């Protein structure tokens, strides 16, 4: 049988076609050394979970590079503080590597607390902090006692695992162990919820927050988009967790269910149909007739507001193909939204997927869809060249691979510029997809100067 694309023998089973034998690719394996992996480290995984907490200082305990390359890159918006955007580092030097960095870490935490009086200081362990054996937990405890401010250790040594999913879990653990359940809400209602796995990238959360409020649910906390640490501290009193990014945050809601008995619902606010379903499911969970009625009205109004607003785009996008190559969640949560635009998802893949993620992709896509795990940049380029989708959805590192091949691209990651969630978000989504797919610049390549 012809391979999906030419690659290393050991990599061939990381790609499959739904409906043809293997429907779930081999996944969650170490990347091959020497390839240009699109994956990142465990520290990166933990950081993207926690970084959107806006009133906190995110202090990277390591040499300067770990902070210098990653500060203020989350694309996560805030309606209040901007402390989370600061790039803070202990800037470990040679002496610290030899004699240990604990003292410097302590002094740095104390100093940052004096400068900013933050809601919390999250201290991230990097590779070197782990290798030299700094006891970050002890330093955090001590500086918390001295400052009276939450100082939270995040044990995210970068090398711990090939899969940054482990980093997501470590970020979630930091919240479970040190934040959630440490403060009681002033008032509770029967309709208290947490919005979990929503990072407010480009303001996505604001696309469906008003809908939830209008329904009559009370949002205790968002974990973690546009949040304050004190809000997350009260999350244990919610009656329901709704989970948007299930890739990063299923772990957290499962643990919260076990520890606090909070049930959860998987939601998806990308696309009209999914938004409608999600709102209904939340209302059904509470079973309050008035809420159910209100929700139907919200849905009716929401759909009415956007009716015909995407017609123009759909006309141009109809029948076009799209390839998804993302961190995890969007590999399944965007499929229906694209189908609503009349587009066909012909490939879906993730960099860090685990088996349960691929199960979800398999459920979401049609037969014949290529499913890819941990494609290196070479493999991705080969896939794009061979199957030539009309659009690639991926992140910054993949953008110019796609564009150089003349394949339109949309950034759905940190560098996204408009909010896509909710009813109105769907119109922005359609508009942005159209702006990529239908632009005449992609036809330029078929012209030539010397007319051959």
């Amino acid at each position: 049988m012809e391979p999906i694309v030419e690659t290393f023998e050991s990599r061939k089973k990381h790609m499959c076609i739904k409906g043809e034998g293997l429907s779930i690719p081999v996944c969650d394996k170490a990347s091959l050394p020497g390839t240009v992996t699109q994956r990142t480290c465990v520290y990166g995984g933990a950081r993207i979970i926690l970084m959107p907490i806006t009133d906190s200082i995110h202090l990277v305990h390591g040499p300067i590079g770990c902070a210098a390359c990653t500060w203020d890159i989350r694309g996560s918006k805030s309606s209040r503080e901007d402390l989370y955007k600061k790039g803070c580092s202990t800037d470990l030097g040679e002496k610290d590597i030899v004699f240990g960095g604990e003292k410097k870490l302590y002094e740095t935490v104390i100093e940052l607390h004096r400068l900013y009086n933050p809601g919390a200081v999250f201290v991230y362990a990097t590779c070197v902090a782990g290798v030299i054996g700094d006891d970050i937990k002890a330093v955090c405890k001590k500086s918390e006692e001295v400052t009276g401010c939450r100082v939270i250790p995040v044990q995210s040594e970068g090398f711990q695992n090939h899969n940054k999913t482990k980093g997501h879990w470590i970020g979630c653990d930091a919240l479970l162990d040190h934040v959630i359940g440490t403060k009681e809400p002033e008032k509770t209602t029967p309709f208290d919820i947490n919005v979990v796995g929503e990072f407010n990238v480009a303001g996505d959360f604001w696309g469906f927050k008003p809908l939830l409020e209008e329904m009559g649910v009370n949002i205790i906390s968002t974990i973690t988009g546009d949040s304050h640490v004190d809000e997350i501290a009260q999350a244990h009193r919610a009656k329901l967790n709704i989970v948007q990014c299930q890739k990063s945050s299923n772990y957290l809601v499962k643990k919260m269910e076990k520890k606090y008995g909070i049930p959860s619902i998987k939601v998806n606010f990308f696309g009209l149909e999914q938004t409608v379903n999600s709102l209904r499911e939340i209302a059904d969970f509470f079973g309050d007739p008035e809420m159910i009625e209100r929700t139907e009205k919200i849905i009716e109004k929401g759909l009415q507001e956007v009716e015909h607003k995407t017609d123009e785009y759909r006309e141009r996008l109809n029948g076009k193909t799209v390839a998804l190559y993302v961190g995890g969640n969007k590999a399944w949560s965007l499929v229906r939204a694209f189908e609503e635009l009349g587009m066909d998802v012909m490939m879906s893949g993730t960099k860090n997927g685990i088996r349960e993620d691929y199960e979800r992709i398999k459920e979401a896509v049609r037969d014949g869809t290529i499913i890819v795990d941990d494609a290196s940049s070479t493999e991705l380029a080969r896939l794009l060249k061979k199957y030539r989708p009309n659009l690639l959805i991926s992140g910054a590192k993949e953008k110019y691979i796609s564009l150089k091949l003349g394949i339109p691209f949309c950034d759905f990651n940190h560098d996204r510029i408009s909010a896509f969630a909710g009813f109105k978000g769907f119109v922005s989504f359609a508009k942005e997809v159209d702006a990529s797919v239908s632009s005449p610049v992609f036809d330029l390549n078929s012209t030539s100067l010397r007319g051959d």
Partner: protein
Amino acid sequence: MYHDKKFSVVNPSKMCQPMGAVQALLGLKNAMPLIHGSQGCSTYMRFQLTRHFREPIEVASTSMNEKTVIYGGEYNLMKALKNITEKQSPSIIAVASSCLTETIGDDMAGIIRKFEDANIDRELPVIVPISTPSYTESHVEGYNRTIKALVENLVIPTAPNGKVNVITGFLSPADVGEVKNILNDLKLEGIILTDISKNLDAPLSESALNLYDGGTTVEQLEDTANSTGTIALSKHADSAGVFLEKKFGVNLISGPLPLGLENTDSFIRSACQLADLEIPESMERDRGRLMDAMVDAHSYNYHRKVAIFGDPDFVSAMTRFTSEMGMIPTVVCTGARSKRFTEDIDTISREKGCSPVTLAGGDLYDMHREIKRVRADILIGNSYGASIALEENIPLFRAGFPIFDRLGAQRISTLGYRGGIDFVDRLTNTILDFYYDEAGYEIVEEELEDVIIEDQEYAEEEM
């Protein structure tokens, strides 16, 4: 709100050594850069570089994980070399270490030798180890060490070639291109270390996804020992030049970076002196045009206060250039703790009669604090300066790395007379846009304040 601080870095103005290594390696032809470390190192560096240059950036990783950290990285490094050799067949693999692999004590040179010995019967790429521990110095030193490692490992002294080695430091592709243009004008053959001019400003074509077919070649690196001299445009990247001078008697001229009139004069003189050439008359025309541009612009720039941040040689050269234009540098900041930088600024200050606050090893927090104290009318630096400029209500003139919130970072041109002309025009236009009204009149301070007060009142009414 802004205080002195001693321990923390807040909003860094430097990156780590392996980043400098990658910056240098992207100027090699048919090469594969490899970082021996965790996956995040190569991935986050690629992220920063790709959003700056708007080009695909390929850097391989040895993908270290918990097991290999405990037992040492030999297995992963050997495997990486094998995979790259077999699948990419580059002419050169350059391996930069990271904080992780330096700390666990991997002997990269030893592992590479072992790999070469095990494959003695096969044709292998040239493999160069580069020690770039992230916990010392900054990306500037990483760049320096990389050029040195490449030269040290590859030089083959044969016969004089009459060429001049030029170590550029990390410049924009446009600026490196201008270095080549100048050498061309002087009819002088150069070996550019390293030449990113084509690699990082590539046409729309699939071939951009292959290993670079432009850039400095292995043969050119071998040939550096035979050159007439070396000019390090960046003083902080001159170690390869020092090596070539000591070992092979190749004369070295270190700095300054040719930005502005005086520094460009000095570069042209150095190049001609090394190659024993008369300065051609044709140079005078562009030089005259730069002076003309500076005269045309003077009334808008005179005594404008400027704050500058970025790599040390860029900042010191820009300090001199803006002084030549009649501006007053008030805060100059680099992330590298460099004595050479402070010495340079002292010299410029004496010559030009200015006294900027000098931060060597400073971060953007420190710089912002000093701007609040001594003021600036314009800020020159990378995109990370945008929030400071916004808060201080001054324009940001984007130059340096990274620039991710505007297009064209590859084409920012500041070097030589011609780049200088471009810079003077664009800087002055930025000032015109910000401080002058649509009819060309200067907006007086009171008016500016009025606008702000009106805005506030408006905002209050809104509330």
